[in-house]
């Protein structure tokens, strides 16, 4: 047999039965020497195809650990650009990546970590029209998104395609994790049949997240993903893990498959993907960012204040935001406006502001409906004030 045909035969065998190269054996040696993974498990990882939806806070540890573990193909779905406020928790990205497409920065980082794996980029917003096609080639879907419409979309698509959905979610210093849509296991809709109406979701003012939290919850999701691939251990199927980072406490709740679940129950009523924005009560989405209220431009406000006009500046942000920066306004957080409106003098001209102008638009709308006639919204909030009037006021 000639040397050439031996190589050919070897390649043929390799195609049928994947093997690890010497470099891979060295790279994965700490997996290979433990019986729970071993050569068989490492080859399962190499053949696995995992889709990460979102490359943000949860996506960071997910991408890094799954790439390091040798998951053969990792798909990434995102359409965002790295900004400075991401760096507090999205550890895939460095300061040099600010302004770059998240997908490009993530691929570069993951390929540097492990050049043996394939990274597939899906630069798009996951939508009903594309979700099934994007999810179909993958074995496991990991949900690291940040909004209810996408969570329900991912859930329904996973149930319809019969793919496990490794779920993680965070809020300030609390996290949740589980695995949905496994055979005989519950899905997201079994747990929460419906999303909260938009108004009942904690608003901007109560947002924020401890930077380490997505690191912990994302690492838990990565761990579940690896176990699903290896087929070993016990997953979080039918268990909801609750994590409180402040108290450093884990709790576990039982999840049950709802026999009447509209998507995974015995008589499903949802048999194809629906309009998830409508389902979540978000009409027109970002097209209509604020309620329409009378506005004043930052420069106009500055001029009036400088001219000594009697203007009452009302700041509707939270006290901890006031500590970051302020315009010497009177502070009543949006959530307290209804209760504290009596502190305001309706005879005076009032200009309300917040960070971006959205919360203050709600405050102005509320006050106008409550009978205040001379109340205006500072257009663009502190962000616009910083851009157009006083750059020494920091943006956050």
């Amino acid at each position, binding site marked *: 047999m000639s040397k050439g045909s031996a190589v050919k035969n070897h390649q043929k065998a390799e195609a049928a039965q994947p093997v690890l190269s010497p470099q891979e054996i060295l790279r994965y040696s700490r997996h290979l020497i433990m019986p729970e993974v071993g050569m068989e498990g490492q080859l399962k990882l190499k053949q696995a195809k995992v889709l990460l939806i979102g*490359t*943000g*806070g949860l996506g960071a540890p997910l991408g890094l650990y799954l790439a390091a573990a040798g998951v053969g193909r990792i798909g990434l779905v*995102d359409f*965002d650009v790295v900004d400075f*406020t991401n760096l507090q928790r999205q550890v895939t990205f460095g300061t040099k990546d600010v302004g770059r497409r998240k997908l490009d920065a993530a691929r570069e980082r993951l390929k540097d970590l492990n050049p043996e794996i394939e990274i597939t980029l899906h630069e798009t917003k996951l939508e009903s029209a594309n979700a099934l096609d994007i999810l179909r080639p993958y074995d496991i879907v990991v*949900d*690291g*998104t*940040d*909004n*209810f419409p996408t969570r329900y979309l991912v859930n329904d698509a996973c149930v319809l395609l019969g793919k496990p959905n490794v779920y993680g*979610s*965070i*809020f*300030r*210093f*609390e996290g*949740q994790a589980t695995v949905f849509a496994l055979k005989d296991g519950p899905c997201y809709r079994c*747990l*929460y049949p*419906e*999303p*909260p*109406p*938009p*108004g*009942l*979701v*904690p*608003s*901007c003012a*109560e*947002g*924020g*997240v401890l930077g380490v939290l*997505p690191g912990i*919850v994302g690492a838990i999701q990565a761990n579940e993903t690896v176990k699903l691939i290896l087929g070993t251990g016990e997953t979080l199927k039918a268990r909801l893990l*609750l994590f409180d980072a402040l108290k450093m406490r884990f*709790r*576990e*709740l*039982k*999840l*049950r498959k709802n026999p009447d679940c509209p998507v995974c129950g015995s008589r499903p009523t949802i048999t194809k993907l629906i309009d998830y924005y409508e389902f979540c009560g*978000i009409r027109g*989405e*970002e097209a*209509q*960012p*604020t*309620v329409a209220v009378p506005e004043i431009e930052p420069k106009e406000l500055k001029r009036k204040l400088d001219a000594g006009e009697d203007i009452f500046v009302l700041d509707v942000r939270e006290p901890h935001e006031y500590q970051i920066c302020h315009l010497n306004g009177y502070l009543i957080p*949006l959530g307290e406006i*209804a209760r504290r409106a009596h502190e305001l003098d309706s005879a005076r001209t009032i200009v309300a502001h917040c960070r971006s102008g*959205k*919360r203050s638009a*709600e*405050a102005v*709308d*509320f006050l106008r409906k409550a009978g205040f006639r001379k109340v205006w919204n500072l257009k663009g909030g502190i962000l616009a004030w910083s851009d157009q009037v006083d750059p020494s006021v920091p943006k956050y």
Partner: protein
Amino acid sequence: MPKVIIPTPLRQYAGKQEALDLQAKTVGELLGRLVAEHGDLKRHLYTDDGKLRSFVNVYLNDEDIRYLQKEDTPVKESDVVSIVPSIAGGKDLEPQTCGERSRTMNTDTHR
């Protein structure tokens, strides 16, 4: 006394408390006392016609009350009742991303 654990997103409506001890014989009675003490919580837990909202789950210890006797589920002195709302965060939690969600908040405040 049975204890009820308030989740982070709802603590602002419960005097910033993490947990409260409340005397009650059933889960429904316990939640009733909770919203009687903290009126702002009511619209977050109940619909206008007095039903528990479907995105708020209530657990007695580690069991979902929907699979027990719902709000009639009896509670013992040592029981822990947890309110577990759905949270969506994960990718980005920049203030500007929640704008569209808070949009209708004022219509709720008017009620």
